[in-house]
């Protein structure tokens, strides 16, 4: 891996992504999503993508943008309830969808990043999620065998990053991002603030730069709020 990780922008970062590849995309809802890279993927026009992400964005933001342009062949997610175009493509059969439990999604990323081929989890035992999967009993309880993800690219969003690719996430925008960062064969990180190596306290870093291949400072973050809720 090259130690020269800093690239100018999203277009340069995603340059190597090809049609038909599998992408892990960080974020929960619209929180902590790689906005710049999604925009760049729409512009690049790669299609037949398999996207693995907790959600599928909303109609006009996040992964929803890639659905509108029909660049996604298959979506692997845990919850997709906020997107009409998604539902339309799913019910019409245009889009392949695999729904998996959220903890399973997270842990399959973690396993990939830890070099562990598979995990056993109780989530989904006795449900249609278990169809065709190996079940093993440990201490009287059944568990499903679930495999680590095997994805070509991971695209994540962090709050701060340095020129060595070390990442710090903010608040609940952390979610799947550090896990996916570990899980990609190639990992692209877009950050709100890119600083020189040495500027971040090593104690504060969530994702070590060894997991990150390309890093750039994103621009014009919209950071849209999906459900603005106040107490007044």
């Amino acid at each position, binding site marked *: 891996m090259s130690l020269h990780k800093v690239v100018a922008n999203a277009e340069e970062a995603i340059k190597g992504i090809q049609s038909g590849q599998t992408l892990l995309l960080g974020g*929960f*809802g*619209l*929180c*902590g999503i790689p906005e710049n890279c999604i925009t760049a993927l729409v512009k690049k026009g790669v299609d037949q993508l398999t996207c693995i992400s*907790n959600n599928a964005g909303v109609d006009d933001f996040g992964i929803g943008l890639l659905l509108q342009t029909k660049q996604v062949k298959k979506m692997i*997610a*845990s*919850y*997709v*309830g*906020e997107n009409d175009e998604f*539902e339309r493509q*799913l*019910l019409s059969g245009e889009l392949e*969808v695999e*729904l*998996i*439990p*959220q*903890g*399973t*999604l*997270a*842990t399959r*990323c*973690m396993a990939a990043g830890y070099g562990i081929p598979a995990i056993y*989890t*109780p*989530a*989904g*035992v*006795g*449900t*249609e*999620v278990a169809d065709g999967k190996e079940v093993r009993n440990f201490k009287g309880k059944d568990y499903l065998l679930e495999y680590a993800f095997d994805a070509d690219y991971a695209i994540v969003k962090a*709050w701060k990053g340095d020129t060595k690719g070390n990442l710090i*996430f*903010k*608040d*609940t*925008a*952390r*979610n*799947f*991002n*550090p*896990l996916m960062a570990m899980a990609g064969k190639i990992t692209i990180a877009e950050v709100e603030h890119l600083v020189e190596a040495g500027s971040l306290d090593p104690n504060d870093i*969530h994702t070590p730069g060894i997991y990150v291949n390309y890093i750039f400072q994103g621009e014009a973050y919209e*950071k*849209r*709020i*999906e*459900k*603005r*809720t*106040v*107490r*007044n």
Partner: protein
Amino acid sequence: MALTKEQIAKRIAQELQDGFYVNLGIGIPTLVANYIPEGIEVELQSENGLLGMGPFPITGEEDADLINAGKQTITTLAGSVFFDSAMSFGMIRAGKVDLTVLGAMEVADNGDIANWKVPGKMVKGMGGAMDLVASAKNIIVAMQHTDKAGNSKLLKSCSLPITGRACVKKIVSDLGVFDITENGFVCIEHAPGVSIEEIKAKTAGRLSIHASIKEMNV
């Protein structure tokens, strides 16, 4: 009179114990946070990566980076902590969360729950519900007793694809409180003004009435 959503939440809040770590699902369960009894301290876990969830923010202090599992803007409290999604479900699977409250479309009298899919109609996904029901020590379901057409949602067996098997311990519906035992649903409380006859008529699964049934205090 059948209970309002707020009354269902208020009754569930009476199940909270001091020191509990609690995960509240989307919908009625979220309202439980508004009725935490005086003198009881619980810590709310939000499975998108927060322990110590605070109230909704005041206008102007919403932060796009700080949301709950229902994607609503929220706040932190003194002692709150953030973590990634694998650790979040790690603490759930490891049994560290004391109580899970979630909604349901159907519950069977053996504790099976269905709340993630209506084939051909609604395909939103299970989110974290399958992980939660597979591991939670104590699951309370908040639900309407019947659907809009008046059909019972407390059944002999679920007609919809299930989320988890034999996991629900207690139901608080708009008509009453039900323990789930080897003998099916056991009605331990009825809503004010709701008769045992009505509960019997609207429950399709095996039902018995506890000898010392009382009126819900809501």
